[in-house]
């Protein structure tokens, strides 16, 4: 603790910030990357399928055109009286150019393994058409004579050869598709691994962070618990100290009060007596001496009075000699005499041998309360009530003064009263509102055995 604390605090803050920031960044990057890869895979997939379909369509086209052209040529050769022979030839030409453009389209996107069979197909096609070409220029007689044989020997085998080529290419295309799928699969695999790594990194970082944060929090908790205990101990020590001080002060007051009353007062009284004895033996006619004796007597008398008053104000002897109630009654009279307030004491069943601490506590609380009534309350009358039950002493001090906001205002006087009461395990309450007077209520527990223990006795100094 002390000056090192802010440094440690800023360091842990930095660590936590970096930890959480890093974790969040990692998660964001991972997520972004995953989306990117997924998009790639998807477009790749679409592309592969598109290529396959386009090529397949081209091949189908070639194949169907091939069949169609075969049929057209056969019809042309085997049926010399064909009405629209010229039309047939036109159709053939169209078919050829269509096939060529389909072939062109196919040839545009080729992988290395495909080039050779595609070229072979192209060559086959060219050969096919070139083989047909002479027969198309035949006269009807030629066609009738050699038509059938041409169809059997040239057309069908060539067509079969070209179809074979087309089949091979179709197989290749299929293979290409499968290969694409495999590559996709591979990409997926890579993606999965990456995701796993990412996840592992995020998780472990999160774990580390959680551990750091948890240990930090635990440390903080331990520290605050230790500090709380420290504060509590200090507070208790302070309370104990203040109680001891109060007790010591009380003892001091008691001792001085006794000393004043019994020693100073008695000595002065004895002095007065001796003065009287002296005056009796000094002849009446020694005027100056008698005058001096008289003034000494006056002085001693007023000194006795001072000693008596001081003694009572410090701690009235009634408290120790007769118990609480006579002391309270004296105080009420005294306060009344000094301030003009009507102070009444109503005591009910209060035993005269309460523990000394209780007597002192109640007496001092009443003293302080009367002090407040005189100083702050502008009260006309104060009512002090003391009652003893089997377990408690109940005290209330009620004035009809101007009151105050008891929830807000607290001075040393009230705090001191409360401390005295709490030290004996009692409760202390102030009930007051501006304009409504004030009631102090005290409840002190009395140990039963203590209440019956001591007998009242007038003590001597």
């Amino acid at each position: 603790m002390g000056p090192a604390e802010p440094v440690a605090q800023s360091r842990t803050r930095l660590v936590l910030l970096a930890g959480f920031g890093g974790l969040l960044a990692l998660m964001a990057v991972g997520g972004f990357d995953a989306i990117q890869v997924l998009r790639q895979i998807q477009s790749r997939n679409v592309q592969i399928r598109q290529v396959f379909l386009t090529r397949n369509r081209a091949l189908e086209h070639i194949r169907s055109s091939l069949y169609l052209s075969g049929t057209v040529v056969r019809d042309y050769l085997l049926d010399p009286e064909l009405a629209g022979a010229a039309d047939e030839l036109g159709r053939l030409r169209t078919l050829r150019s269509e096939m060529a453009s389909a072939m062109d389209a196919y040839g545009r996107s080729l992988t290395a393994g495909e080039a050779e069979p595609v070229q072979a197909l192209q060559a086959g096609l060219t050969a096919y058409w070139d083989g047909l070409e002479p027969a198309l220029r035949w006269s009807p007689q030629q066609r009738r004579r050699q038509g059938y044989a041409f169809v059997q020997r040239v057309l069908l085998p060539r067509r079969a050869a070209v179809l074979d080529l087309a089949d091979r290419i179709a197989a290749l295309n299929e293979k290409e598709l499968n290969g694409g799928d495999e590559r996709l699969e591979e990409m997926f695999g890579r993606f999965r691994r990456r995701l796993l790594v990412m996840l592992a990194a995020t998780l472990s970082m999160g774990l580390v962070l959680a551990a750091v944060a948890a240990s930090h929090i635990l440390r903080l908790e331990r520290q605050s618990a230790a500090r709380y205990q420290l504060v509590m101990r200090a507070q208790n020590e302070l309370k104990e100290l203040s109680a001891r001080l109060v007790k010591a002060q009380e003892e001091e007051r008691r001792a001085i009060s006794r000393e004043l009353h019994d020693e100073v007062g008695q000595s002065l009284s004895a002095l007065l007596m001796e003065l009287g004895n002296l005056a009796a033996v000094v002849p009446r006619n020694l005027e100056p001496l008698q005058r001096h004796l008289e003034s000494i007597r006056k002085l001693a008398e007023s000194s006795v009075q001072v000693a008596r008053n001081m003694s009572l104000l410090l701690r009235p002897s009634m408290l120790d000699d007769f118990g609480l109630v006579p002391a309270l009654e004296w105080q009420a009279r005294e306060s009344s005499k000094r301030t003009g307030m009507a102070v009444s004491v109503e005591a009910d069943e209060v035993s005269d041998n309460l523990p000394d601490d209780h007597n002192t506590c109640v007496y001092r609380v009443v003293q302080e309360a009367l002090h407040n009534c005189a100083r702050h309350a502008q009260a006309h009358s104060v009512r002090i009530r003391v009652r003893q039950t089997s377990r408690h002493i109940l005290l209330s001090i009620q004035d009809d003064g101007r009151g105050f906001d008891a929830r807000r205002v607290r001075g040393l006087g009230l705090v001191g009263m409360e401390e005295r009461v709490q030290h004996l395990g009692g409760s202390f309450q102030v009930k007051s509102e501006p304009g409504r007077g004030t009631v102090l209520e005290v409840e002190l527990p009395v140990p039963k055995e203590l209440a019956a223990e001591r007998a009242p006795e007038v003590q001597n100094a």
Partner: protein
Amino acid sequence: MPETATRPIRILLADDHTVMRNGLRLLLERQPNLEVVGEASDGRETVRLAESVAPDVVVLDIAMPNLNGIEAARQITASRPEAAIVILSMHSDESYVIRALKAGARAYLLKDSAEGDLIAAIHAISEGKSFFSPAISRILVEDYMRQLEQKHVEDTYELLTAREREILQLLAEGKTNKEVAAVLNLSVYTVETHRTHILQKLNLHNVPELILYAVRKGIIT
């Protein structure tokens, strides 16, 4: 009923303060018809001496070791009721006065006024009367007057009849019912009835309280 001039009043002095005791002895022995027959410095010794030397008057301090003066007064009153007790104390509070009266003391003096008052007090109590230091009377009267004033209550003394007031004074001076009956020429029974009424009207419970009341009212001093 003054004692015969030939027989001096026998006095027992009880105080733990030697200087005080010596001063008192000096003061008393200057008087022609007073005789100090014993001195005690604690409560028990006082009670013992009160038995053995049979004093007419015991001058008792309150704060004494072993047994305080009030307890000693109680025991002496019980064992030798004929001994009149005057309390001589530093304490001026009424709680001491009332307790001393209840314990059987007839007079209460402050030590600082002993020199002037003790002789008079001894004579008064040996005649069966009460006596209080003027300082004490003054304190009691003032307190009482202030209480009446502050509480705005009716003075209960006004409730008493003239006869009752007469009887109150005699009782407070220390006379017994029989003596009062003799003085007023009434029957003891009538006096007793009056006494009961007086205590009721004044809300008092016993003679010591009645004496204290009388002092407060300034009826006796």
